């Protein structure tokens, strides 16, 4: 365990940025936070979380894949993929850190997504314990401990100090290369306990997810409540685009006039043209689209991935849905717990 005075945070950022690009959650002009490339003068946000999740840094909304240059009858294939240099993400919350594990299961299983892997291999993740969880947080329902976040390095704010603990070899390497004071693990115990106390109070902290598994797939799929739950859904992609675990994308070609640029971009199962490229008979109404999203997170994903849910309880969709319909309301309606 290492420590540093919070007043020297800027110096820490400066030192970290020497080792590669450093991203920290910082306020934009509208007061909402975003993971931003650190430059001298940029300070960390007071907000609990960013609007867009940290997945952007591994799986950006738009990514170039390959170019095709056309001259006459010749087509030349030009590789233009992004090659990552080492970079550091500072201030990731426990929920987002867990989301990387979920994304890894999708992108790093065979066939490996080399675009994603490239960024993942070059990143060092520094997490930060949540001192002030929001009412929309329910990470505890997925067994995530916001008082003891994962990542290569975990950090805690304790009074005027920042404590850092390496969890992996990568983290060890990073911390040992910095000029930090040694500290004792016990220094953060009190903070951890305090956070735990707040986590206990979270209104959705004990969300009951019994019955959301492969065993009950058809039962959940056929529940009549889907019609009512999806009734007001606008069919926008807000929930999917702010979600740290949504991983669907579309591959598109752009005709530049002198060739073709192939890129991939996020797609949303909430959209009417989702998976239209494969066939013309995709989910016909918003009810089916809506059901797909929540079945994927709460039933399909766990039944294919050793019971791990495709949700980390970060609460972004709860905050941002224009009509306030969300995964918690779905789980409560279809689940076995209190309604």
């Amino acid at each position, binding site marked *: 365990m290492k420590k540093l005075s919070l007043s020297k945070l800027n110096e820490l950022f400066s030192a970290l940025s020497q080792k590669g690009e450093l991203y920290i959650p910082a306020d934009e002009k509208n007061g909402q936070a975003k993971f931003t490339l650190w430059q001298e003068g940029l300070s960390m946000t007071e907000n609990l979380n960013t609007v867009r999740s940290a997945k952007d840094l591994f799986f950006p909304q738009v990514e170039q894949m390959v170019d095709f240059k056309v001259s006459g009858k010749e087509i030349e294939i030009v590789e233009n993929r992004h090659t990552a240099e080492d970079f550091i993400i500072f201030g990731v919350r426990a929920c987002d850190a867990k989301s990387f594990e979920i994304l890894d299961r999708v992108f790093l299983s065979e066939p490996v997504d080399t675009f994603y892997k490239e960024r993942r291999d070059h990143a060092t993740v520094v997490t930060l314990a949540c001192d002030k969880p929001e009412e929309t947080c329910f990470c505890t329902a997925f067994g995530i401990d916001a008082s003891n976040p994962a990542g290569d390095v975990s950090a805690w704010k304790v009074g005027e100090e920042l404590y850092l603990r390496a969890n992996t070899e990568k983290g060890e390497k990073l911390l040992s290369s910095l000029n930090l004071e040694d500290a004792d693990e016990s220094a953060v115990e009190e903070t951890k306990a305090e956070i735990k106390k707040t986590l206990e109070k979270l209104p959705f902290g004990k969300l009951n997810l019994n019955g959301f598994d492969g065993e009950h797939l058809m039962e959940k799929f056929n529940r009549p409540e889907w019609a009512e739950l999806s009734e007001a859904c606008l069919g926008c992609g807000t929930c999917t685009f*702010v979600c740290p675990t949504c991983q669907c994308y579309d591959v598109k070609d752009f005709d530049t006039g002198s060739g073709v640029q192939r890129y991939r971009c996020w797609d949303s199962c909430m959209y009417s043209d989702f998976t239209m490229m494969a066939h013309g008979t995709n989910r016909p109404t918003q009810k089916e689209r809506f059901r797909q999203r929540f079945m994927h997170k709460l039933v399909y994903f766990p039944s294919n991935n050793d019971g791990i849910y495709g949700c980390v309880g970060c609460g972004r969709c709860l905050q941002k849905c224009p009509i306030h319909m969300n995964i918690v309301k779905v789980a409560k309606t279809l689940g076995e717990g209190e309604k």
Partner: protein
Amino acid sequence: MQEVMKKALELLQNGTVSRILGWKTGDFFYDLTPAVFESAEEVEKDFVFSPFCGANLSKYLIKESRKEGKIAVFLKPCDSYSFVQLLKEHRIIRDNVYVVGVACDGMCDIEKMKELGVKGVTAVREDGENLVCETLYGEKTVARKDALLERCVSCKSKKVVMFDEMLGENGEENPESHRFDKVAELEAMTPDERFAFWQNELSRCIRCNACRNVCPACSCEKCVFDNANSGIANKAAVTSFEEQNFHIIRAFHVASRCTDCGECSRVCPQHIPLHLLNRKFIKDINELYGEYQAGADMDTKPPLMNFTKDDCEPSIVHERGGDK
């Protein structure tokens, strides 16, 4: 507020309608969802009318008025303009709708309250001019006027323009709304400043399409931006051009039909002031073709579906504003 629920129950029980379109309670008082209620039990359990009923219900009537039976809807003043505009465009079947107008003194925005530092809100209650929030970190009070939605701060009208029945006293249009102040402020900037302003705003767009999907004036069955055969369909803005293109066309497509209900800005997860684009069109129309309020009546033609022989030439854009 109880009055609204009572009315919903009464309409169901006396058989005037078979369904009610209203707002359904959530977990925290602020997280309401538009919903259709089919029985008195459902209404008693979940129906709510509160300062967080920002959502404009009129667009849901496109679908709901085509279903069997009559549906009652509660419309706030600004929603009623959207309703009339949709009627004018033959999108709603009037005979299947029973409109209850509700007086409104402004709706609140939880996002704005969070920006004011109210974090971890688990419950909200009204206390005169204040909203008292219970939070995970103790009680916090916010003045209601500081928590108002952007569109309510510069409310254009408290008049419900069409109703079968009115709850409370109908209000008046408010010509002193100052709703074009920000547009005028931008117009007074240099082109470079304006460009920088919009680049900053539009670059945050994540193309979630919430602004489009919530808009009562955007009611095409298939949007050009979703149509793979249109040549401009895109699911994410790859370049700044695509950001500009989407937002110019979105605003242009509803120009002269947009009632300025402000839903686009309310739903934007990235807090982009999209209503400014719509208001710019409204301001231009008012200045160039005479005052026009979309959805205010059933008779007037929207200015872009109309003309006069002595309209100004497009070169007026180059002439006004001088060096700016």
